[in-house]
């Protein structure tokens, strides 16, 4: 369980030699990197590069043919109350459209033995209290994402794993998310987020991991990966198969 604010001790995320095939398609080849406490690590790559697959393997949703993916020293599936260790935000809201937002958070809280009072706290935190009694099917994309974030924060975890966290958020929401993640990292949390938006990422992250066609092609501090290029975006285009005049 996380300690009081300012004294979070997020565990290290360690991914080593992960290989994943689906049928005959190779999704990931020897993927490995670490994300450390107190830092925001950006996981960067074009569409279909393997970002989501890597995060899903880390969270025990998909299985790798080889390799290990550990959160604070253990596979995700071996944590007894995982929500108190890791908060995860995947695409969509993760909720059934005919439940209310509050009913969704209540069963999530119950599944990890979290007190019901936490539901109202996180609803307040993501500014969803007003619509908490409405069915999830009536939510906009942005509201759904905020509900997903609320579920991720229920257990007050010191490790956050977020797949494209700013997708669907408006300008205010993006700024809120950026400041929130920076604050959590400053408090000692481990934050791993994937994105295909470079400009967005450069303003938020300390470390960068770049994946392309299922392989890690660069990893290090933001300054280290940017190197001699003027911006992270330039470095990204130089590194990945996505040319500025490429497929698009």
């Amino acid at each position, binding site marked *: 369980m996380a300690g009081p604010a300012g004294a979070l001790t997020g565990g290290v995320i360690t991914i080593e030699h992960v290989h994943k095939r689906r049928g005959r398609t190779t999704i990931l080849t020897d993927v490995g990197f670490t994300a450390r406490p107190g830092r925001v690590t950006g996981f960067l790559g074009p569409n279909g590069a393997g970002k989501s697959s890597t995060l899903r393997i880390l969270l025990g949703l998909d299985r790798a043919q080889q390799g290990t993916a550990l959160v604070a020293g253990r596979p995700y599936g071996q944590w007894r109350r995982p929500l108190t260790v890791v908060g995860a935000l995947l695409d969509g*809201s993760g909720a059934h459209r005919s439940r209310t937002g509050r009913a969704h958070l209540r069963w999530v809280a119950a599944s990890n*033995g979290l007190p019901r009072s936490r539901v109202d706290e996180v609803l307040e935190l993501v500014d969803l209290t007003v619509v908490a009694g409405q069915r999830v099917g009536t939510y906009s994309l942005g509201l759904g994402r905020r509900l997903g974030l609320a579920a991720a924060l229920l257990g007050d975890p010191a490790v956050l794993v977020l797949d494209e966290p700013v997708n669907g958020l408006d300008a205010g929401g993006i700024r809120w998310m950026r400041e929130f993640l920076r604050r959590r990292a400053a408090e000692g949390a481990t934050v791993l987020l994937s994105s295909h938006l470079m400009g967005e990422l450069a303003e938020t992250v300390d470390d960068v991991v770049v994946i392309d066609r299922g392989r890690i092609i660069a990893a290090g501090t933001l300054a280290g990966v940017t190197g001699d290029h003027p911006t992270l975006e330039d470095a990204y285009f130089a590194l990945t198969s996505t040319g500025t005049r490429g497929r698009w």
Partner: protein
Amino acid sequence: MNTARAELLKLATLPALALTVVLTWAVTTLIALVAPDGPDPIPVVRAGFLVLGVLAATSEYDGGHIHTTLLCTPRRGRLQFTRTLVLTLATVPVAVVTVLIAGTGDPVHLVLTTVLAAAVGTLLRHAPAAVVVLLGYYYVLGPFVRDRVDDSMWLPAGWTVVAVLAATVAVVRRDA
């Protein structure tokens, strides 16, 4: 215990399940009133229990819901066992009330039907597909195929066990 509580909360907060139960009871009442000495209403209202099981299982596959469930409870074998147990227990009162209204029938049989349907729903992950397979067998193909073989007790029980095991293996093995 936490998982069981969460699963019970899920069942209690799905409007489609409550609606299915109410409609099932309404149709049972209607048939019992229309033809008190007539044909057995249970074969008709069994459809309600099939739909109940299907919806309870396939609701996990609406949007990214299954991801949330597996993030909360990553031990999948235990998760599936608890889900099955909670659904079984929650269906008992529904079945008992139905049998009381109908004045005939076996509640255990109806509960097993629901659990079987949930297992098929888990395997197919798609409510309309599961409904077509189950109702298609029970109502369209079955009457031709099993032709005057009355379904004895061990048959649904055996099929339920097989389906539950298959569903558990599928949940444990497949990528979410």
